[in-house]
């Protein structure tokens, strides 16, 4: 079978994006009203197209075959003799297909708009971000040479203390320390009772206390801060932690404590 249409289409055969694209092409080509497609005519032309593809030994994508079946199905329903007797509100067999075609047309048209816009906007050129160097060292510079020295001395002192303890009292392998968070919290509060603020290192430092006690002491001030009994302040990294008593709620804790100890 060879019609003028077949000839015309074979050239473009591979350019169709899918069955909708092909149908759309046929509608445009024949200047048909998309809302009132002459289904006989369009089906014939569509089938012609598939035959042409077959003749050229092109693989026909399954989507094209599904559409062919759909078209043939619609065509047969349109041809049914008892059609006129049916009620008026019966759905036009073409409706679903038309809706889909219209939707497809919408996006196809927008594709063209996008292409145009791309052509325009691909002509602008941007610039890479400036590599602005930030001195991370700026922060480091706050650490003075003296701090370097004191940190080092701190380590040495700590070691000396450990060594002395090891030498003089190797009586047990592991010393189990009993340090309770509660007792450390009390210790902090007791000290704050007479002072508006205390330095953390006054109470807990590795020179005076064991590592466990210092850690627990630290947890204690965190917990007290969470309970809003104290206010913590540290001006910068590694500097002294100042513990202030929180005027508003400080005394409540004393009440609690009294109640608690009274209950024991």
């Amino acid at each position, binding site marked *: 079978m060879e019609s003028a249409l077949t000839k015309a289409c074979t050239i473009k055969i591979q350019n169709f994006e899918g069955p909708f694209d092909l149908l759309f092409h046929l509608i445009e080509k024949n200047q048909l009203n998309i809302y009132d497609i002459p289904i006989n005519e369009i089906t014939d032309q569509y089938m012609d197209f598939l035959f042409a593809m077959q003749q050229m030994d092109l693989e026909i994508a399954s989507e094209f075959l599904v559409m062919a079946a759909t078209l043939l199905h619609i065509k047969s329903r349109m041809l049914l003799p008892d059609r006129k007797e049916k009620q008026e509100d019966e759905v036009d067999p073409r409706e679903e297909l038309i809706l889909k075609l219209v939707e497809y047309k919408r996006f196809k048209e927008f594709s063209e*708009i996008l292409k145009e816009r791309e052509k325009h906007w691909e002509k602008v050129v941007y610039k890479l*971000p400036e590599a602005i160097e930030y001195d991370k060292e700026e922060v480091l510079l706050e650490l003075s040479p003296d701090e370097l020295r004191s940190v080092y001395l701190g380590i040495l002192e700590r070691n000396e203390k450990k060594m002395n303890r090891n030498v003089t009292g190797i009586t047990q392998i592991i010393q189990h320390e009993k340090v309770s968070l509660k007792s450390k919290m009390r210790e902090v509060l007791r000290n704050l009772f007479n002072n508006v603020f205390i330095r953390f290192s006054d109470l807990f430092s590795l020179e005076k206390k064991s590592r466990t006690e210092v850690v627990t002491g630290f947890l204690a001030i965190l917990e007290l801060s969470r309970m809003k009994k104290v206010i913590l302040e540290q001006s910068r990294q590694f500097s002294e932690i100042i513990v202030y008593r929180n005027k508003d709620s400080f005394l409540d804790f004393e009440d609690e404590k009294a109640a608690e100890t009274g209950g024991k």
Partner: protein
Amino acid sequence: MDIKKVEAIIEGLLFASGDPLPLEDICEILELDKKTARLVMDNMISSFKNSNRGIMIREINNAYQMCTRPEHFDFIKRLNEPRQKQVLSQAAFEVLSIVAYNQPITKAKIEQIRGVNSDSAISKLLERNLIKEAGRMDAPGKPILYATTEEFLRCFGFRTIADLPILSMNEVITVNENQPIE
């Protein structure tokens, strides 16, 4: 700080930033409220345009970016290596159009509208960063949802998704994700 100085600083910021600079960042750096900042930006955009300068300011998704003027491209492109232009296929354009108007949308839905398998077009668009995965749909199989990116806005000159042209009413068909997929 007078308006001239604010504008000069913003010009410097946009230049140094290179990438789109969010309005919030401008507000924060210059200690401006959003409304004022937006007025300043609108004013700058139009004054750059009106004074026929070689640089313009674009708004993309509430961020601002400097770029050259498209009409000077013939000169600009002589600067350095021609940018390798990756051409989008017709299929990719169609998928992009569908995603733009129906985001977030599943692959099945895209294919339903186009009537053909769209795997390669989708992966091409993902690769070019024109669409992105935008979560999963609460449906059997939890299919991936796709949406357009800022790169999409940038490439096609939209400020926001709201800038997409309105399609004529009689042609608008609501896409319903729950509709059976054929």
